[in-house]
């Protein structure tokens, strides 16, 4: 983080916008109307206010393929790259009529035959065809996912930066782990150290949970780590728009780890070894689900792997989407958050998440946070 609000670096912007325009061409999309912040950031390189959680769709960013012009809702030019001139900015509005009038006046949009959106609401599904009567409204997510899933070298650097911040904050939280400490306090330490490094936006805010019960991960006012507990850390930050995530599980008291727990760690290591072995270019994503089966474990209920980038990227690999996993292929330039999780009969869980870059001939692990070792 700098001492002023900067747009993303030009090399990064250029690489991304080129990929986005190429994907538009390949998917025969003449113009994009984008509501999702990650997509808007991908094509604009503009830094806007970060908020948590899902947001209703609103077309606050437009891209016209014929001219390459980018238009954005922002009431000021701070954080906006200089290749988006002032007359391509539109002030924040609460009035859908004004927003639609702005879109209607954008050069090239009225002529677009196919306009892609990255989501819709019932209202915009009705309104947009009225102001662009000659255009077909199409789903732009497949094109944007295709563009975003392969990372430019500058993007990989950005992910490494985010991972370094996440790992430093994780280490600080782990250093505070001892019997009697609360989940709240460990999460608080993570947030503090994250922000002190100049990154004020977390990716996952669960951060920590006592992984010794059947309940969902949650921070409870009363939850304090006891001797014998396993404590899981899901450390994620958003730095420069890019997500870095790393997961570890530590015993609350390293001197009180019983044989069953040691065995659980061994099983998690085994799963992780098989997952890493499976991370090869050209393989279908289903190899990651198969790695769990081969190790004799059921994949966790959340994605086993998902792309890291501006937020979440594809592929998202989960047992709930088996056909998708069989169809999608690991490709050089993808960066994945890969999770190895093993749960014992007593609900105790060892959770481990690593960032893996798929290379031309194999993979590179980008995370290096220490593990508990026997």
């Amino acid at each position, binding site marked *: 983080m700098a001492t002023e609000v900067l747009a993303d670096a030009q090399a990064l912007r250029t690489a991304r916008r080129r990929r986005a325009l190429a994907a538009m061409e390949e998917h025969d999309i003449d113009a994009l109307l984008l509501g999702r*912040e990650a997509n808007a950031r991908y094509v604009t390189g503009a830094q806007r*206010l970060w908020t948590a959680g*899902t947001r209703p769709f609103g077309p606050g960013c437009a891209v016209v393929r014929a001219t390459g012009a980018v238009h954005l809702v922002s009431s000021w030019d701070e954080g906006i790259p200089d290749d988006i001139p002032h007359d391509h900015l539109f002030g924040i509005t609460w*009035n859908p009529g004004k927003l639609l009038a702005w879109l209607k006046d954008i050069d090239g949009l009225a002529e677009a035959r196919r306009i892609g959106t990255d989501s819709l609401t019932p209202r915009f599904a009705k309104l947009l065809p009225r102001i662009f009567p000659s255009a077909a409204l199409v789903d732009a997510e497949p094109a944007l996912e295709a563009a975003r899933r392969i990372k430019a070298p500058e993007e990989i650097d950005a992910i490494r930066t985010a991972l370094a911040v996440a790992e430093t904050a994780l280490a600080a939280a782990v250093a505070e782990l001892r019997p009697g400490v609360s989940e709240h306090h460990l999460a608080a330490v993570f947030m503090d150290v994250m922000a002190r490094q100049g990154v004020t936006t977390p990716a996952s805010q669960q951060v920590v949970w006592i992984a010794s019960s059947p309940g969902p991960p949650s921070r409870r006012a009363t939850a304090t780590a006891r001797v014998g507990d396993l404590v899981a850390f899901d450390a994620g930050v958003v730095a420069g728009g890019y997500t870095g995530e790393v997961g570890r599980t530590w015993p609350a008291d390293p001197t009180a780890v019983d044989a069953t727990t040691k065995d659980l760690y061994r099983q998690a290591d085994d799963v992780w070894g098989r997952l890493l072995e499976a991370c090869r270019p050209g393989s279908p994503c289903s190899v990651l689900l198969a790695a769990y089966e081969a190790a004799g474990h059921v994949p966790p209920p959340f994605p086993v792997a998902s792309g890291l980038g501006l937020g979440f990227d594809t592929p998202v690999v989960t047992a709930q989407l088996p056909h998708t996993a069989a169809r999608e292929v690991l490709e050089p330039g993808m960066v994945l958050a890969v999770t190895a999780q093993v749960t014992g009969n007593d609900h105790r869980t060892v959770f481990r998440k690593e960032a893996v870059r798929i290379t031309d001939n194999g993979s590179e692990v980008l995370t290096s946070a220490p593990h508990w070792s026997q």
Partner: protein
Amino acid sequence: MTVAVSVELEPDLARMQRGRWVRLQQAMADQGADALVLLGNSNVSYATGARWSLSDPGRANVERPVAVVTADDDCPHLFTTYPALGTLDLGLPDDHVHGPVYPEFDEGAEAFARMVAELVPHGARVAIDELPGSLHRVCGLFSPGAEPTSADDVIGAAKLIKTPDELGFLRRALAITEQAIAPTQASLAPGMRQNELTARFLRAAFDLGADANILDPIWQVMPASRADGPWTTHGDIACPLLTTERELEEGDLLWVDTGISYAGFASDFGRTWLVGASPTPRQQAQFRAWREIVEAVLAVTRAGATGADLTRAAVSASDGDRRPWMEHFYLGHGLGIESAESPFIGTDLGDAYDERQVLAAGMVLVLEPLVWEDGAGGYRAEEVIAITEDGWIPLTDYPYDPYGD
């Protein structure tokens, strides 16, 4: 009908959800919706009572709990990665708790649409809050022959009025925020960086039990003049500008704006601070002028007043040549399930819109007027109140230091 507005000191999740269920069913009946399909985080939280730590939007779009509500049912269906969340925490029956769904992907959207089709009666009028392309392609499976209508309108109508339990949880969210702000403000000194304020605030908020940070906290150093700030589309002040590692200097004028989530409620906090300095007489006068605007607005605030009554009061109490709030925002907004929700007052939706916004007992308002003297900066803060039949009650009592007596 007179509605007594109170803030429950011991808010109860199960009782809150029963109250919401009644409001939700009524709103569905009013708007002709037989079923709701809810994908948005705040809508799912409202309908089910589920709470979780909101994540970055990129992740939140993919790993999201989803809810389905049908008319005449007793409780919602929840689709979640963690079924125990539904059964243990929320007390939902087993047949209303389902595994995770992935409507963002073609395979997941189709599987989800088929499940919805089984839950929703044939021919039901379905409302939905979001239509990702993948789900839009298959929504005919559960809404044959008709495009779904807007579930945001249904939830919006239901959540407009807060029950005593809701006000109780909201006040806890506000209290956590202010208890975390207090040590942050006490630490403020020249040489600190903006991001260090964030570090202190987040640490304190999470220690106090906040579920999540909901926006990158704002500690904006205000220039004395608009011309010294960034270019803007409207010529008005640029705000909020993002936090950096900028070092704060003695006398810096900070406009603070932040909020957290707790138990499914969003808080909001806004004040003006000075770095290592006491306000000058002119700055004190700005604060007094701001107080006068707030008092003028509060004097007309009660159930039955319109948004336009409030904006007129603010303008009358203001000396300047401008409407005394940010041109790209509002004089006031609702708060609770989201950090800004209906009613919106003083937006660019216009005066006629404000005339139609009629306040009702149980609504929550955040008033955020400002005073600006170009060349001498200004004052801005936020007041959080609940509307009552004959006036309002405050939901916070954070001091205005270093301004005031």
